[in-house]
């Protein structure tokens, strides 16, 4: 995701969407073939099941520049693999709790049950999450590794703060 999310001071949220193959991805297909229009901010990744969603994927998306993550799975009781969406739900709830503690507004990550016939729901949810995240603004994560001259970077940040200690 090399494109900038900030253009001419207007913020366009970048969303990564993880959709399950059997329900939500098919619903997104339906939305497309039905010529429904919705916010174009999401990059959709198809998973076989929402239960395949490793919480690492969500963190990796945020780390690599996403401002929000949308997860789509089958309605409870409808999982193609029986249990996958329940596992996804449990991981999602605990991940949201962790994100709040890590200073990330948990509205940035959203799970929705959308069945294969609910193309209109994909349209509505996509529009909603883009608007929600537009209100939150871009997600700023401190860079993980110093790329350049560490001493210079530190001196600069010390200088900006005035006092290095406090």
């Amino acid at each position: 995701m090399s494109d900038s999310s900030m253009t001419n001071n207007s913020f366009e949220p970048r969303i990564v969407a993880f959709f399950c193959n059997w329900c939500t991805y098919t619903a997104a297909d339906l939305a497309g073939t039905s010529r429904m229009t919705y916010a174009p901010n999401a990059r959709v990744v198809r998973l076989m099941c929402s239960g395949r969603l490793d919480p690492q994927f969500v963190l990796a998306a945020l780390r690599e520049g996403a401002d929000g993550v949308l997860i789509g799975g089958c309605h409870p009781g409808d999982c193609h693999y029986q249990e996958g969406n329940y596992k996804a739900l449990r991981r999602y709830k605990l991940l949201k709790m962790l994100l709040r503690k890590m200073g990330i507004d948990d509205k940035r990550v959203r799970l929705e049950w959308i069945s294969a016939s609910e193309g209109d729901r994909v349209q509505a949810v996509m529009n909603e999450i883009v608007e929600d995240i537009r209100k939150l603004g871009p997600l700023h994560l401190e860079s993980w590794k110093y790329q350049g001259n560490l001493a210079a970077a530190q001196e600069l940040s010390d200088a900006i703060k005035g006092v290095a200690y406090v």
Partner: protein
Amino acid sequence: MSKPKVGIYWCASCGGCEEAIVDLNEDILRVVGAVDIVFWPVALDFKKEDVEHMQDRELAVGFVNGAIRTSEQAEMARLMRRKSAVLIAFGSCSHMGGIPGLANLNDAKTIFDRVYHQAPSVVNTEGVVPQAQTKVPEGDLTLPSFWDTVKTLDQIVDVDYYLPGCPPPVKLITEALGAILEGKLPAKGAVLAPDISLCNECPRKDSKPDEFSIKEFKRPHEIDIDPQKCLLDQGLLCMGPSTRSGCGAACVSGNMPCTGCIGPTSRVRDFGAKALSAIASSLDYRDEKDILSHIEKIVDPVGSFYRYSLPWSMLHRRASDFDKKGALK
């Protein structure tokens, strides 16, 4: 022929790693028989200048333990890197940030406010806080700067190998020293421990169910822990499934759950996310309200899942979403 030279340095750490080296017992005689320890501030009287005067890469192996959180530690890490042919991150703190890395939930100002002003045992009527620079009649006094964010060693310098654990188990140290002396080190970047989950060497392995269905999360002081049964199956937050083996299941054998000090296997990039995934999916509820009421019993999710790896995690430190609104909690 002169013996290969070895240097050992500590950054933000507790001294437990040095203790682990001493715990080699008689084996340490074999080590000093094979190498010259030329720098080890905790145990031997050599100075920084002695290292500065060495040729680059003169140390055959440099061990650095501790996380990096001050400008001085970063400077020493760079010096050790320059003078060492092989640089090894020794222990959880230099590997993944360790316990000091949990400070990444705060910043320097919050930490200093707490330590020098708010802590109940502190009496600081004059409001004295250490400064990076202080003017005195004789000139300027300086102290290293204290960073907002704790870093792992490899976020500061290039690291060749990682010797994991809090502290590294004696067995892993011995094996690593053997590999170094025999020139049988694996490919650069390797973690010098078996690349398989702790459950694999757990003495309670046979009682681990095929499918977990945890009814309730418990904390160790709340229950009478069954010394035979799988700890996760008893509802304790055991990090075994997501942790690398190599410690001989020391904590589990002591009837306490694994806290994940060795870090994950090579297939995992973010320890906490993987541990969270394993624990959450083992819970036996499908209803949203039930799930919420049970996960809320995990009182400190960051401390539980990222106890040794917050700076190494993908999020690296606390983000600023709530700070803007002034609701830092």
